């Protein structure tokens, strides 16, 4: 590795200066991560599995880890020329920690067999599930996503409009607020038995439940956002000739957006919970159903695979919402701790 550093730094810059530069640090970090994953690949590939076990995908897993190591090394070198890839450096400690964890998991399961089966499958068993059962998993991901997206957007839209209405209009506040107060705190899952026989299909019942779970926090936070708008903002707009429409759309709503996003985040969190419960209890599709089904067959590797996919999906959606907020509320950057 030292020869690599020497080679790159043999330009006009003095070697020590290059070593301290961000490019060099990202290179070193990236190569260290690559080396760690290469070591994991070697461990999986060359240390034979425990006798009498028949893990079919051990070699594939080793190849995958090796590919990851190569990709990391390439990214590390590319980072010398493309500053955008220098985030490898920031990720390097995590990548190394994950490699250690992965190696430990592999060792205590496939290699030494210290943990009882089938409760603690090795990583290659999960890889096996992801590859062999991909059709069913794909269908489940699609089903879950469709249910969640429909319910969430419906709930967020209705919640937003309701929140603006009760924040703005006294009449709406008078009639809707008590209902909200009474029904809102009820967990959406409490409606489950009722929803499944009132609605024509378990799909529509689940959409209703997810929308309900999303709608309540969005409504309350939009409302508090609209109600908390600095009244001087309205005075300014009114003296400049603004009508009601302008006051709502261009003053109240933009001023309330930071609150609305808090509601959207909370709603997304609760919608995940309701989604999984609904799928476990009524809907015959989706990742929640898959979990339940895998447990019925004592297929623990399948459960871990589904959990992993679910975690990726949920954190991915939260990330998307964060990105959206960063775009829409970038004006807040100088005002709050971002």
């Amino acid at each position, binding site marked *: 590795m030292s020869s690599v550093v020497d080679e790159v730094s043999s330009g006009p810059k003095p070697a020590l200066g290059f070593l301290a530069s961000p490019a060099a640090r990202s290179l070193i970090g990236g190569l260290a991560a690559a080396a760690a994953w290469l070591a994991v690949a070697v461990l999986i590939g060359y240390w034979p599995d425990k006798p009498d076990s028949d893990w079919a995908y051990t070699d594939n897993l080793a190849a995958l880890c090796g590919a990851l190591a190569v990709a990391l090394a390439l990214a590390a070198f590319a980072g010398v020329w493309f500053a955008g890839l220098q985030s490898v450096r920031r990720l390097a400690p995590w990548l190394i920690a994950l490699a250690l964890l992965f190696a430990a998991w592999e060792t205590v399961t496939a290699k030494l067999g210290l943990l009882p089966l089938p409760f603690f499958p090795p990583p290659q068993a999960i890889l096996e599930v992801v590859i062999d059962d991909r059709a069913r998993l794909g269908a489940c991901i699609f089903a879950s996503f469709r249910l969640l997206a429909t319910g969430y957007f419906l709930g967020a839209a209705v919640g937003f409009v309701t929140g603006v209405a009760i924040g703005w209009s006294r009449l709406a506040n008078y009639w809707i607020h008590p209902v909200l107060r009474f029904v809102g705190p009820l967990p959406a899952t409490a409606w489950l038995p009722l929803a499944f026989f009132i609605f024509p299909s378990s799909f529509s019942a689940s959409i209703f439940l997810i929308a309900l779970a999303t709608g309540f926090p969005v409504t309350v936070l939009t409302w508090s956002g609209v109600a908390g708008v600095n009244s*001087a*903002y309205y005075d300014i*707009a009114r*003296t*400049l000739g603004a009508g009601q429409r302008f006051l709502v759309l261009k003053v109240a709503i*933009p001023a309330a957006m930071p609150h609305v996003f808090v509601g959207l985040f909370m709603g997304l969190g609760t919608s995940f919970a309701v989604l999984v419960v609904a799928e476990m209890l009524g809907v015959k599709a989706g990742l929640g159903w898959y979990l339940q089904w895998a447990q019925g067959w004592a297929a623990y590797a399948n459960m871990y695979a589904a959990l992993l996919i679910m975690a990726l999906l949920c954190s991915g959606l939260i990330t998307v919402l964060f990105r959206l907020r960063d775009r829409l509320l970038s004006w807040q950057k*100088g005002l709050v701790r971002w």
Partner: protein
Amino acid sequence: MVVAPAPSERAPPVSNDPVRGTTLTIRDVSHRFDLEGQPLPVLDRISFRIGRGEFVALLGPSGCGKSTLLRLVAGLDSPSAGSLLVEGEEIEGPDPSRVVVFQDPTLYPWRTVWSNVALGLEARGQLRTHRERIEDALRLVGLTGFANAYPHQLSGGMSQRAALARALVNDPKLLILDEPLGQLDSLTRITMQGELVSLWQRAGFTALLVTHDVEEALFLAGRVIVLSERPAHIKAEIVNTRPYPRHRGDPHLAELRHQVFAHLGLEATW
């Protein structure tokens, strides 16, 4: 921005037209607030008249009800008794011909300086036809390079300039200034006072300024109306005929200041 409008359509935010300002008549105006069921009188039969293009200052101790009077003139509240007339017509609500600049700039933090200044035009659906006025107003207050800045990136003085541009872009006939320089540091304040005078001279609007700074009132206004403690009534009216631009060291202004202090019961500090 690309297509230059015909000269006849192009109404700049300021012009030298001397009859642009409006008259304001305040007749026997009283106002009270309801404080936990108790009536709290704030204004006590205030009457005065402001002529076209005049610059009048309302001077009084803090909390005497000056800002309340301004809210009534702006049409944001209605008086408990009496009437306020603009050009002989009763004020019934806010109108873009009477624009307020508040003590706090209250720019919308989610809008750039440019869109903050555009607010009035946008609210009245005139953005497309009068877009060039925004540039004009920004130039007038010296914020040309800051059109795309967000309010939190501006200093106190720049924010207040932006608030001023937001008012001027509407070509007001009556500019209502509610201690607009109250939160600025003393150096910025002195600069802005001079700028306010030249803006007023060029634009020809009628100006009504509320302040508790005697020096500011005398430096800017042609007439200073001294109000009492709450409930406010008019204690005195001091005419200041010194020509503009005025100088802070002018002995005549010092003499007037003495008079004002006497009306406020502060001779002892002289």
